[in-house]
């Protein structure tokens, strides 16, 4: 299954996703921030990887992982990572500021 390889790839694209999502949360709120995290954030993650680490694709190709597989794996991991992060963020903000509008 190469779970470690998928996770390694996700760790490489996560900083790009995180930067984009933090900006999203700041400008459009938590709910839309999560939507951006799961959609455009991922897109920017792949774009960032392609721009900065393009040679590293061969690390994964040699394991038999195509770009398509890496993208699908990252979508799954991104949701598994994103749901708890945004849930904790929501609880944390609610705790500090009281009930807030999430959009």
């Amino acid at each position, binding site marked *: 299954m*190469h779970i*470690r*390889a998928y996770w*390694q790839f996700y*760790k*490489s694209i996560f900083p790009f996703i995180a930067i984009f999502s933090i900006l999203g949360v700041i400008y459009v709120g938590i709910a839309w921030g999560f939507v951006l995290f799961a959609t455009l954030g991922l897109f920017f993650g792949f774009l960032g990887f392609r721009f900065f*680490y393009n*040679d*590293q*694709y*061969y*690390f994964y*190709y*040699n*394991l*038999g992982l*195509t770009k398509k597989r890496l993208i699908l794996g990252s979508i799954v991991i991104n949701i598994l990572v994103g749901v708890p992060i945004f849930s904790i963020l929501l609880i944390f903000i609610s705790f500090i500021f009281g009930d807030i509008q999430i959009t």
Partner: protein
Amino acid sequence: MAIFKLHSASKHFGKRKILNEVSFSFETGEIIGIFGRNGCGKSTLLKMLFGTMSADTIEMSVNGVSIKNFTTKHLSYLPQHPFIPKNIKVRDLIPIYFSEEKKQDAIFYDSMIANISSKSVGSLSLGQVRYLEVLLLANLDRPFLMLDEPFSMLDPLYKDRIKILLNKLKSSKGILITDHYFEDVLGVTDRNYLLKNGVLEKVLSKQSLKEMAYLGDSSI
């Protein structure tokens, strides 16, 4: 024993035909070399064989069985530029490639790797990274290994280590090397070719590399 056959491969960029019905074969137990000037299509050929670059036409087989597109079941490929993520420690990298303990140990306890296993890949020298890359690919369960410039920019110690490793691997793998460091390549290969004008020509000796206008007068 396994035999890899490239029956025919063609590729053009714009109006320039870079590979013109190139064909060759190699088998486990031998190392072959492909020379060629910059831009002649060596890396293009290797990427086409590996399946990461599209070809105009390509037909290849392993043991007579036709293979298409992504060939990682049969081939591993060392690209020209380092490909291991830099932000990872060597000891954390190995389990990503190998789940079996025996294979992990084969790399962990390699004399050149044992003392760098706690270092991050980004802090290693080019020679250490290249050696680690070859070692990782060598331990994958594939009968064929393609190496694009494995000796480039390496110090003599790491060149020697890679040559020793390749000679050891030869008993179980078929290996294809392209590199401009012709002395190093000729030192390990059984057969050699020159890629020129889109066609592969057989190289018989170092002298013939000069006659084929790959080497200059001062190179020999």
